[in-house]
């Protein structure tokens, strides 16, 4: 992409973006009462607090622990453990609210009819077992390869 076409695209995208933002603001003001717009603003603010204050901090903590652990643990093992943690966390974020809503009562019996909390625990257990097996498998494989000097171990 040439410098001129990049510039043209950037200008087009910024103008399009600003127009869409204005449209969004107009639709909001046109269809939502001021009191409820305040509610939207509150939730937008809460989302930033959750992101910057909670998710970012937890991520920072985990990244820090991984960095410290990284001195002694092979990077592939770290990647496997990280994968397990990420999977469990993402499912917690998606499923836990459903499990809680089910516990306090859904609008009718066909909404949230499944066993969310037990299924989540089973899912976590399966991920934990698979993560463990993957680590054991990788470690065994790495050890075996180490015994064969012809194979690169970088």
């Amino acid at each position, binding site marked *: 992409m040439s410098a001129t076409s990049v510039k043209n695209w950037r200008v087009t995208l910024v103008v399009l973006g600003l127009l869409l*933002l204005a449209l*969004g603001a107009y*639709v909001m003001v046109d269809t*939502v009462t001021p009191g409820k*717009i305040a509610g939207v603003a509150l939730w937008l603010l809460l989302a930033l607090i959750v992101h910057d204050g909670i998710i970012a901090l937890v991520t*920072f903590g985990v990244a820090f622990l991984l960095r410290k652990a990284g001195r002694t643990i092979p*990077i592939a093992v770290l990647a496997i453990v990280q994968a397990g943690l990420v999977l469990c966390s993402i499912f917690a974020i998606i499923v836990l609210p459903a499990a809680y809503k089910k516990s306090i009562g859904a609008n009718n019996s*066909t909404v949230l009819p499944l066993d969310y909390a037990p299924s989540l625990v089973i899912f976590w257990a399966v991920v934990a077992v698979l993560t463990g097996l993957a680590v054991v498998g990788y470690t065994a494989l790495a050890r075996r390869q180490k015994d064969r000097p012809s194979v690169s171990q970088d």
Partner: protein
Amino acid sequence: MAVVLGRLLGIAFLVCFGTGLYSHFLQNPLPWMVFPTRPQSLYQLSQGIHITAGIACFPLILGKLYVVFPDLFQTPPIKNFGNFLERASITIFISASLVQITTGLLNTYQWYVFPFSFRQVHFALSFVIIGSLAIHIATKLPLISRYWTRSRSFDAEGNLLLDDADQPLTKADVATELAETTREPVGAISRRVDGLTGRVFDWIDSAPPRVDTPTQARVSRRGFVATIAVATAAVVALTAGQSFRVLDAINVFAPRKNFVGPNGLPVNRTARAAQVTDADTGADWALSVSRGATVKIYTRADLEAMTQHQVDLPIACVEGWSQMASWRGVRLRDLLDAVGAHPDEDLRLTSLEKKGGFRVTEMGHEFVQDDLTLVALELNGGALDLDHGFPARMIAPGRPGVLQTKWLSKLEVI
């Protein structure tokens, strides 16, 4: 990595935006709009994709935020006007996206804990998200363009190709820069540790930087992208069964499950919630069909005595779940022919429900004239359950569930 995940996330958001607009205009059509009635499961597909892509956004957006997370703490927080524009647009984007996917998920199981109306805000925020995304892409375009293709991102051995500006500064670089600034030679750079904060940061920094070989960097990079891919595939696989029959067997986390409910079909709004009682739907119930001054009244027995048609059509809810079902009843066109309706005339439908945004709705002539559109009396081999719209409900191809009016009381040609 940010470009790879950003590209997927951008596609997911655009898919949600497109399918969302389709759903919006089906429910709030502009006067000139005409919609396709085939394939009959079009809305089942479009809204199933909308909700599934929305759920897939959770791992994608969290993965993307993780990758760019160090930028959150850049110093100084704002470097110049371009940087301000970039940070402002990304702040709006992150905030609006998180609210959008969170309230969207809560809406799929009708949990309205937020202090605003879902439909209007979801619609307005969609423009805000796509608008801020466009600005974000504009600010990042050189980077996106630089790493768009694999051949420009990696060398022959699969190592990431970094530009000079992307290379981290070494102590020697810093010493050189300092020397240039002060015009005096600078000795070895040492660390001074003061107080608790200093000690904590020193402890953090004391971890020797990983001397990552290209292979290790590849493992780390590919491992993370693979993790997000697996997480996205897993959330889709374990929830999309509510919209796509083929995945029903492994649907363990979706808010709805096929075949659970009266007549073997889930219920969105119960008769109780709509304040429709047995008294409203008892022996006195009758359906009024009118065109101008011509009015015909049908009891349920009258409708049962007419030619009955059986069709297989999905009920596809705006909240994403859908299920194919077998409906039996009177073809709508037969009822309207009896009052002399023209093929290009639309229809107003009124329900017995006492209140609600969809008590009175309109149906375009393309749906009215369709062979498959029925005033249904039976569902899956039995009489309609009260929660499914007894005594009579509408079922048409390619329409959102909220427009498949239950507890019909009045049909007016307009």
